[in-house]
């Protein structure tokens, strides 16, 4: 089992960002108030936002290492990324969205693989529909399928459930939790919902104003909250 090891420093707007986290077999939740630097941390892991220093390694191999001058390009990191608004390509149908990242010689092979991944996520029926015609839950499945189809070595999910209606959120959460457990690849889930943490992740990293204030399981955090935010967050879990 590979692990995603991250220790990055950088600056985002006015404040400094300094985050260390390790995601192993079980998904890791990254929580914190708005503007704490959660999305920026994901973008730095992804390679889309340059850190000022630190390192990012996957299974012991460096993706970024300031000291050794390593900085693998975004397209070569093979990290599956699902951004907050899913970032689906609006001019392609679901199948071509998913096929975009498939590494295969022919277009037919890419599309076959895309259909297989869509089917794996119970979304085969969406194949020929375009993003503007899809509901929130459907968009999320297609975005997840797209991230998985490129056989990523780790998954980065930014608020995967935040854009969903309350009515479908619980279903999608259950679905996502079950799949994440099955895939067993290092996964970082950014969320602001304690229910997401309880369902999706084992360990939690709490980020406030760019710094890690507490790390541990949800139960450990609830037992000894280090900050007001952690106390409110853990007591908000239903």
């Amino acid at each position: 089992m590979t692990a995603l090891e991250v220790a990055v420093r950088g600056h985002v707007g006015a404040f400094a960002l300094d985050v260390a986290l390790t995601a192993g077999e079980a998904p890791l939740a990254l929580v914190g108030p708005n503007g704490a630097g959660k999305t920026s941390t994901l973008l730095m892991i992804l390679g889309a936002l340059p850190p000022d220093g630190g390192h990012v390694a996957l299974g012991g191999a460096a993706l970024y290492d300031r000291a050794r001058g390593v900085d693998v390009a975004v397209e070569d990191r093979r990290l599956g990324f699902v951004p907050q608004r899913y970032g689906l390509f609006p001019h392609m149908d679901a199948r071509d969205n998913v096929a975009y990242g498939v590494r295969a010689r022919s277009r037919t092979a890419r599309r076959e693989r895309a259909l297989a991944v869509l089917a794996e996520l119970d979304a085969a029926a969406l194949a020929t529909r375009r993003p503007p015609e899809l509901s929130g839950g459907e968009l999320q499945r297609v975005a997840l399928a797209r991230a998985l189809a490129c056989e990523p070595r780790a998954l980065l999910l930014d608020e995967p459930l935040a854009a969903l209606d309350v009515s479908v959120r619980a279903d999608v959460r259950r679905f996502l939790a079950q799949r994440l457990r099955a895939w067993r690849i290092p996964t970082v889930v950014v969320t602001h919902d304690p229910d997401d943490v309880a369902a999706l992740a084992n360990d939690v990293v709490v980020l406030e104003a760019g710094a890690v204030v507490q790390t541990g399981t949800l139960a450990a955090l609830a037992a000894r909250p280090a900050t007001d935010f952690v106390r409110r967050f853990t007591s908000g879990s239903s």
Partner: protein
Amino acid sequence: MPEPLTAARGRFARAAWPVTLGALAGVMLLLALLPLAGLLFTATPAELAAGLGDPLVGPAVRLTLATTTVSLALVVACGTPLAWLLARRRGRLARVVETLVELPVVLPPAVAGVALLLAFGRRGLLGGPLAALGIGLPFSRAAVVLAQSFVAAPFYVQAALVAFRRLDPEVVVVARSLGASPARVFFTIAAPLAAPALGGGAALCWARALGEFGATLMFAGNLVGRTQTLPLAIYAALETDVRTAQSLSLVLVAVAGALLVAVRAGRAR
């Protein structure tokens, strides 16, 4: 008794306001429409058809089609990368470059003509090196293309810039994370998503190149079959046969009107 006086004044103001509005708007409309009416209604169709038979017309139409096509191709080929680069940079330098690129829109055509001469003319900035290579740009077809590209490029670059800025950054980042190189992101994501706006910008750019007159006259001259585009042919015809000038003008009005309708339809989608 101030009461009735105020009421009377109020009534007058209420009546005067719509009349004033209507009168001023009417003046504006007349100013826009009377010249068009003059073009349309002062000659019989037979006279206009005869005007199109003038020997100036054929070469001018061919030259205009050729030069505006080359100008548009040049602007799209080089302006698209410029807009893409500028759209993805937030620094002060990018803003300065953006303003400079847009400047020709507000530049008087005469100034554009002088500027082109002082850049590419025999005594201009590049005059020496160009002469050494045996290239004389002024009063050539290349000069026509340069003049058209100079004045028309901002219309395309600006449209492309706006379209590329509107692109969702999440979409670009995801495409990269899926293994796409920056070039592949541009061709498969950015360009198709910006295509309607790029088309609209290209149409405006072509329309502006089509109408280019002042800078062309000063930098490229008015040589029949060589640098005399349609607007210059209209200018030349005005001295000999006003009907030829009128027919050619109506042709340009029709083309410009069609382009405007097409651009509006494209925007409405």
